[in-house]
């Protein structure tokens, strides 16, 4: 266990820990471009140079392991001067096109310029700058700008080490060096947006997020990715009711610090095809007030005999929402049969992506205490006329090998509680809009059986209601009892049925 001194303070770390990591544990932020805690050390940006006493040259803190008796200075004039010089080199040929660069606002070049450089360029003329390729599409999700690139090779190492598909490489030499995709390849391996995410400058940017919003307008909120059963921790960036992107949030138990492309883009579940107000009518929905919609739903459910009612749970929605529906269906409506609506399965890989594209299938199973029947069973029952009325949660409902809408159309009554259009709301007589996953608080149980609680990332929009609130109002109209008034009461009821919460979440 080497013991060393950094900026006058002693610290003891395990053998093999680098100086940059040791400094980070002490709260000292060492500037860096190329170093990434999850990637191998390249030590090519030279930004993390620190002074080690009895060592004639400055050393890269990302590469030097801590050793017994080391005395390290991370912020003395010599180090600062070295960093200033590095910044001058890096910015020499930089186009300074921050106005059109999506990275500006979260760009390390900007931050370190303000911290260490603050000088104007000594280049005689703008014309002397080395011109390189700009806005080169690397793949469907990522675009590359060679002039902004500082050649840290984080993206190269990410593809080689994490994705194990070394398709990116450095080409040319000196001022002219840049990153390129291997011939006949495109940057398309399911994690390509992570290259844009880890790019410390504006060289690799997301084509999806490109020019959509300046990052300083964004507000970040912690959430769980709703894209698949892995349940990666993420931050949702949003502004004025619109979501813009998901960013990975460090959770060493699940996703470490990565997110797949589908995950980054799953913010769209919040933006697209939303239901904004209650509506009535099958096929040709007419907007209605909450009063009318709830009365209509209550009347339709109330007139069907108990035995012919059923409830559809949703693997897209949180445990709390499913539990509220289960309680409402069992205690208020006397429903015995529960079915499960879910998105269709997709591709899986060895890293983060699960085949099950629903974030909470395991959670629904836990809430019901049994395996819910599949959608195909509901379609059969509907065709046979054994079930006439259904109260359904969630938008998407896939049934293996069957087009679900035709079967659903045989049902006399479908009351759909959903945040966006989909199979169930499209077949419904009454649509009651609730908040998207980002607008709700709750718990997802992932494929590994880990319960992860998350808060409301964005405010519930106008005209929307929480699921438990919708059910409570329905119960009031039906003169039936529903035990929950607030989200906290549902939460308390659900807590006991969940696995140990200690495994949930992770340090950001």
């Amino acid at each position: 266990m080497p013991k060393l001194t950094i900026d006058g303070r002693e610290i003891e770390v395990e053998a093999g820990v680098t100086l940059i990591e040791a400094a980070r544990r002490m709260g000292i932020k060492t500037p860096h471009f190329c170093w990434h805690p999850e990637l191998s050390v390249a030590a090519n940006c030279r930004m993390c140079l620190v002074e080690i006493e009895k060592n004639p040259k400055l050393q890269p803190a990302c590469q030097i392991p801590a050793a017994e008796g080391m005395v390290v200075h991370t912020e003395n004039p010599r180090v600062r001067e070295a960093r200033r010089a590095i910044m001058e080199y890096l910015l020499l040929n930089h186009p300074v096109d921050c106005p059109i660069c999506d990275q500006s606002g979260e760009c390390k070049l900007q931050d370190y310029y303000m911290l260490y450089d603050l000088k104007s360029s000594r280049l005689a003329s703008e014309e002397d700058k080395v011109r390189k390729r700009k806005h080169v599409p690397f793949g469907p999700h990522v675009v590359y700008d060679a002039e902004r690139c500082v050649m840290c090779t984080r993206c190269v190492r990410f593809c080689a080490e994490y994705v194990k598909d070394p398709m990116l490489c450095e080409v040319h030499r000196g001022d002219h060096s840049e990153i390129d995709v291997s011939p006949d390849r495109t940057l398309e391996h399911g994690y390509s947006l992570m290259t844009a995410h880890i790019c410390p400058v504006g060289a690799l940017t997301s084509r999806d997020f490109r020019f959509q919003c300046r990052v300083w307008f964004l507000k970040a909120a912690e959430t769980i990715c709703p894209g698949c059963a892995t349940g990666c921790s993420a931050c949702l960036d949003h502004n004025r009711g619109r979501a813009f992107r998901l960013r990975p949030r460090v959770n060493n138990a699940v996703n470490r610090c990565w997110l797949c492309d589908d995950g980054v883009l799953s913010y769209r579940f919040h933006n697209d095809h939303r239901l904004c107000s209650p509506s009535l009518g099958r096929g040709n929905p007419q907007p209605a007030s909450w009063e009318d919609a709830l009365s209509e739903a209550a009347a339709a459910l109330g007139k069907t005999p108990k035995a012919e009612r059923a409830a559809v749970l949703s693997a897209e929605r949180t445990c709390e929402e499913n539990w509220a529906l289960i309680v409402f269906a069992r205690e208020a409506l006397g429903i015995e049969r529960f079915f499960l609506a879910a998105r269709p399965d997709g591709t899986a890989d060895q890293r983060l992506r699960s085949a099950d594209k629903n974030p909470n299938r395991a959670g629904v199973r836990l809430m019901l205490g049994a395996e819910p029947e599949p959608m195909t069973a509901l379609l059969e029952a509907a065709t046979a006329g054994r079930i006439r009325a259904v109260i359904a949660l969630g938008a998407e409902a896939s049934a293996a090998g069957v087009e679900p809408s035709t079967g659903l159309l045989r049902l006399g009554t479908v009351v759909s509680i959903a945040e966006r259009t989909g199979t169930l709301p499209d077949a419904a007589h009454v649509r009651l809009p609730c908040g998207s996953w980002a607008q709700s608080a709750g718990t997802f149980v992932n494929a590994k059986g880990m319960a992860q609680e998350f808060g409301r990332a964005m405010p519930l929009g106008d005209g929307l209601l929480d699921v438990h609130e919708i059910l409570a109002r329905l119960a009031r109209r039906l003169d039936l009892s529903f035990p929950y008034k607030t989200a906290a009461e549902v939460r308390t009821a659900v807590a006991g049925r969940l696995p140990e919460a200690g495994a949930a979440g992770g340090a950001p």
Partner: protein
Amino acid sequence: MPYVVKRPERDIWEQSYIPETVRGMGVTLRHFFRNVIGRRDTVTILYPEVQRPYPPRFRGLHRLTQRDDGSPRCTACMCCQTACPAECIHIVAGSYPDGHPLAFVEKYPAEFWIDELRCVFCGLCVEACPCDAIRMDTGLHARPVEARPHLMYERNLLLSITDAKGDVLTANPRKK
């Protein structure tokens, strides 16, 4: 802590009102007669006919400057929108398609709205602009309109507004 108001001390001369009133009337009448007969000290400017010349840095309505080829200089960097304390600027960015002569600029304002009713004419947007794309050198006032939307100035209108000399290009020699 009680605060004792100091009362002014007045002698009998002042207390008797009359001499002081006469003195005061002397002041008013001096002004009166000087303005009626003799030179006029009136400071009033009869506005529409007589106009006080505006200072060269007068901040009027905004305009968006054009490049020599008529495209907007603005690159939709949103610096003005960020700097605006009245939150009256709204920009939607668009990107030039590949092969477009301006594709090297990449970005342009697909929509650019200024709510001149909300604008406080502080000029921070002009200060913030890195491209000299927004200027307030038009010398124009927000004119009275019949409906609020008429003062929601849109991109093409802003681009067509000229500076006081009738120029649609930038007036900044460093940016020419």
